[in-house]
């Protein structure tokens, strides 16, 4: 299909490109699998490892292709129903939620000090849950990047997992969640969290699928020159998957502006100012962004109580 849906064509191309990469990796894997049958005993383990490595690469690119395909389907569904439905096209991150059969999904990008710097959310539930973790300083993203491993928290365990985050996220209607770190074991750059994956899928399937998706996101979207360009030069139009994903990123701009203003008002450090803004949000039961906006619009000062 061409013409009527110009936003869909590039995404289709990304999917095709990933499929070509998958085929290339599979070709190498197959050759080593064949050689294994005839090779001398001593060299067989080598062919086995080469085959395994390239099967993993094949899986990574197939997963990336499926991710792009899912986004294409969502764009198509949106395009044919857009008159009755939402004005804006579906977000790329929603495709990730759909692939895992989850209600919502969110990506949180962290600083080396584990501070949230950017969040991408599929809907308001994911955004609110990510906001809670930012305010409370505990939750799935912190756990996944600290332990460096995937965490699945089923419905019966969620109430007991985190002292503050658990009850708060339950109030949002979230019953279970799963999270996987993004990036490299030496440098985790963030985490992918899915909220309310369908119950039947909460077992091994989910863990496997989430792991593959986190791997594909890391290596085909995040750790790319395109992603770096998208984050560095705001003026440059970035047209690949990273640009699409980051188009919906919230870099907490207002919150950090507010922290700067509070630091000037109170004569304290930025860290303390940020903690003050978060504390005020916690006490008032409001989102940090809401409090920050009031500070930036000069409706609220934190130094004159």
């Amino acid at each position, binding site marked *: 299909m061409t013409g009527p849906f110009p936003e869909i064509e590039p995404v289709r191309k990304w999917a095709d490109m990933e499929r070509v990469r998958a085929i290339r990796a599979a070709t190498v894997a197959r050759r080593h699998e064949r*050689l294994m049958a005839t090779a001398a005993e001593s060299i067989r383990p080598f062919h086995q490892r080469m085959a395994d490595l*390239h099967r993993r690469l094949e899986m990574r690119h197939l997963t990336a292709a499926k991710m792009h395909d899912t986004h294409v389907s969502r764009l198509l569904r949106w395009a044919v129903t857009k008159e009755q439905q939402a004005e804006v096209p579906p977000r790329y991150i929603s495709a990730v939620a759909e692939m895992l059969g989850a209600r919502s999904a969110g990506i949180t990008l962290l600083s080396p000090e584990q501070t949230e710097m950017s969040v991408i959310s599929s809907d308001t539930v994911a955004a609110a849950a990510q906001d809670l973790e930012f305010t409370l300083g505990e939750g799935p993203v912190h756990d996944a990047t600290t332990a460096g491993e995937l965490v699945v928290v089923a419905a019966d365990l969620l109430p007991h997992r985190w002292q503050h985050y658990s009850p708060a996220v339950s109030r949002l209607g979230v019953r279970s969640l799963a999270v996987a770190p993004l990036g490299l074991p030496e440098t985790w750059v963030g985490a992918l969290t899915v909220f309310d994956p369908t119950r039947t899928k909460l077992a091994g399937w989910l863990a496997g699928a989430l792991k593959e998706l986190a791997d594909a996101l890391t290596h085909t979207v995040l750790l790319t020159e395109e992603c770096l360009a998208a984050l560095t030069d705001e003026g440059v139009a970035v047209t690949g998957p990273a640009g699409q994903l980051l188009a919906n990123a919230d870099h907490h701009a207002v919150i950090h502006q507010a922290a700067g203003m509070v630091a000037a008002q109170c004569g304290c450090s930025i860290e303390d100012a940020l903690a003050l803004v978060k504390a005020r949000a916690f006490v008032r039961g409001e989102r940090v962004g809401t409090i920050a906006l009031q500070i930036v619009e000069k409706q609220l000062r934190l130094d004159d109580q």
Partner: protein
Amino acid sequence: MGDTDRRGWDAMADLAARFVAEADLACTLAWLADQCAELLGGTAAGVMVIDAQGALDVAAASSGPARELQELEKRHFEGPARDSFHAGRRIDCPDLAEADDRWPRFAPVAQRHGNAALHAFPMALPGRTIGAMTVFLADPGALPGEALETGQTLANLAAIGVGSYRARQNEILAAQLQAALHSRVLIEQAKGLLAERLGIPLDDAFALMRQHARSHGRKLGDIASAVLDGRLILAGEPTE
């Protein structure tokens, strides 16, 4: 230590030093191809290394013909580097005149460029091969064992170097990603701090910082950082 030994040793030391210093990878491999051709007494040498998807690609060649031969291997999926890469072991061809069955496209072209024999050394890492290095010879016959050892050692060193360079590239990218995000955070915080301190709108605070960055040829993130820890005092209204 003989003169040949000495030169081989120097080449290895030099190669290792280049990788440790994180010199440009393409330059290092081009240098390796030159050294390899010279040390082993070949007409030329070429290096092929896998790309991110695991496909063999031309990385360096010591001469135009050698580059053409590597390109041919890539395009037609046949040749000694390819075989060495896939088998994970050295491929010896002491007489290219007898290699037409093995490499129907590659062998005739190689001979036309004045080559009569070749060796391809696998570039292996634990559990996988990441490429191969081919040395072309003007006369038929295999190289002596010592020369083959030198060639394989250079290929091994190159494999370790390329492997660690690649792993490091991902690390660098991850760190740059975090630095880019961090810089955004600092800029917003500095905007807030300046706006409040000078009693000006946020946009003006931003313009003030950007103007300072431009006129001093510095990055906006560095200016923001300096504003935040009090190393830089900006005052007055932006003139833009």
